[in-house]
């Protein structure tokens, strides 16, 4: 048993050999986390497990027992976007958008532990999240926007 976006879930026995990424996308239908490299090198699959940004493409589903998983689908409340999501729209960050769910989850994990991160904090938290469109400047601005609002 584990918690997924606030709800208790059971791991189906025939999904034990899958990665968390495939479990989320193909069993739970949560398509926000993306497959980019399958080796934890690009960050497109990032989710938050027990408060930490984790690469779901290399996280075995079998290890989920007792943990709390948050995905991008669980960020917004019923009537409001999460401040990081809102900042992403205000800065018009996405180009193709494929990496952005992972970027947002890494940023949320950073800002929860470090509400006013330094430039070095931002780079060390975000440097493993690749973006081929080149939106890094806007990502930094969006993170700063949230951090300044705190």
């Amino acid at each position, binding site marked *: 048993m584990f918690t997924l976006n606030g709800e208790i879930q059971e791991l189906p026995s025939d999904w034990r050999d899958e990665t968390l990424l495939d479990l989320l996308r193909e069993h739970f239908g949560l398509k926000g986390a993306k497959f980019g490299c399958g080796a934890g090198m690009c960050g497109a699959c990032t989710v938050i497990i027990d408060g930490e940004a984790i690469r779901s493409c290399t996280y075995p589903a079998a290890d989920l027992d007792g943990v709390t998983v948050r995905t991008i689908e669980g960020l917004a409340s019923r009537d409001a976007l999460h401040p990081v999501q809102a900042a992403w729209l205000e800065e018009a960050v996405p180009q193709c*958008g494929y990496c952005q769910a992972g970027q947002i989850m890494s940023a949320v994990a950073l800002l929860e532990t470090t509400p006013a991160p330094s430039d070095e904090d931002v780079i060390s938290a975000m440097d493993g999240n690749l973006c081929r469109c080149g939106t890094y400047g806007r990502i930094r601005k969006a993170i700063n926007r949230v951090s300044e609002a705190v």
Partner: protein
Amino acid sequence: MNRRAFLKACGIGLVALIGGGAGVYSTVPVIPRRPEPDLKAAAGWIAYRDGSYQLTLPRAEMGQNIATAMKQIACTELGVPWDAVSVELHDTARPGTKSTVGSESIMLFTEPLAQACASLREAVDSGRAIGQVDVVARSRDDLRVFQKSGLIGHSPALSQGLEIVTGKPLYAADVDRPGMLFGRVLRAPASTEIPSRPLAWNEQAARAVPGLVAIVEETGPAIGQANGLGIVVKRPGALDAIADALAVDWEIAGDYPRADLPQAIDVDTALASGPLPHISMDGAPEEGSWDVDMRFDIPLAAHGPIEPRAAVADWDGETLRLWAGTQDAFYIRDFVSDAFALRPDAVFVQSCRIGGAFGGKTTCTVEAEAAALSISVGAPVKVQWTRAQEYALGFHRPPSSHRIKARLGEGRITDWDHAQMSSHIMFTAAVVPAWMQSGTDFFAGDGGVERGMAIPYRLGRARAAYDAIRLPVHTGPWRGLGAGTNALATESALDEAAHMAGHDPVAFRLAHIEDQRLATVLQEAARTSDWTDTPKATRQREMRIGRGIACGIYKGVSYAASVAEVMVAPDGRVHVTKLWCTHDCGLVVNPDQVKAQCEGNLIWSLGMVLSDNLRLDNGRVTTEFFSDAPIPRMSDAPEITVKLLETDAPPVGAGETAMVSGPGAIANAVFAATGKRPTAFPLAGAEFAL
């Protein structure tokens, strides 16, 4: 569904037919068998029903955010608020549209869409609610878009932005079908230009892995000459295990003769056996000694989109439905219907938002694999390439080798001679069958390789010639095509000429520029970056700091100039600290997204100079992960300042323009900082060490 049926199906509303007068379509046969951009066929992109408007995007959406720009055009010309128009991506039940390439969307579709919306507006205003609206082309002066009214020049909320930040399904791999299975087609670890096929495999071992549904021998067309062996499974995690268990024994027909790429395209070796056959500038430089005589080598490079190619195919025994992240859904339809002997109207392709394409998602590969597997097992199948497949089976920017010579007289270039050896971009082996290649090689040259060789300077006696030869790896369009790589070489050589002449790089360029728009972007780049005459290298402790500049014109219509500041460490590592870019693409529909394209091009420029490369072994790309082919990270990204120069010129593209100025600016900054001219890319740190 034929066109008549389509229009009838829409019969409960108003459909604008885009009429004549907007025939500005390119006629370059980029890809064979693509739908011709027939004007009549461009019908029905904008419709009115029950008080609201539906824009069916006649372009692929891949991050250029063209959906937002076209919605701005539609709202402006219709005279309706933002929420009155809904946007959907096209499918092949619609009339055909040309592929989304070459930064053409704003340039070619702004006016037809505005014309259609203007006529539709008139029809609605006159009280009509049903039927077809024939679009009567009016003068541009009578279109609101060209008067820059309404939403033109604004940057409203991104179309699909909310869906992106909330993780909604948008991309091909996000598609689910009832009973969907997962597939992969394995191919030999060899050059895709060597015939190969599966010879034997361990079926028993594969069957021992839970989840195997089928081993498929009919996997559709070869990729190049690489035939595959398919596997279909119940859950995606079984794919790797079954691929390993099969331990396929491949028949590979020997080695490719030109497996050493740098040697195969060595420009000096080619020139030793005579002049290069295809001419871009036909001046006759005089023989004699040269003031600049340099060679530039630029390697093979991947597009590296974060989304590996993906498709979902669903065959029901009569029709094949495909969901694809492609720059040309109609080409996918035609390719698949031909490959599997299906009537074109039995194949239906839905274009999905693309997770980065950059010219790379223009051929049919993973879509045909998914189709073959779905047809074989009679169930929906999802295929997404692994990162290693992206490198091994996708096509790449061809490597190029340049020799550039220039002679100076009284501070001006009197003679210029640029020779380039590369491989194909337009008539690539990824799309042109072998029998046709010899013909295109002999007669046509390759406009993609040539792009940018005719540089926008008055140079006296100027010659530029090239040749493209076949390589064991597939090459093709990559952001900017030849314009990016050619400009890196020519802007470096020009900078060297300025240095030899003892002139400031800005003044030296201006002395050779006749095009006023180019002069203006260059002067503005210098002004916004506080450029001073030939900026001297400075030192900050042991770091060497320098600035460089470059400029250019993309496809004859779009202008950019860039300034770079770099910091070079004692060990020779280069860090780009600042980039400025000035940009003139005429009328700007969405300034923020034009800036976003400039920012993207500048980050690509950085990758081009500092990291883009691929590892090869015996003519096969062996790069498997981003760690082997790094792309820029946040820590590499400099402070970027983009300035758009709005002019009254018609709107043109912005998706690739700054590729003509960014790389040269960075390379020239490295020269300014170190006194060493970068000539072999990507830069090896040691060469610039103290």
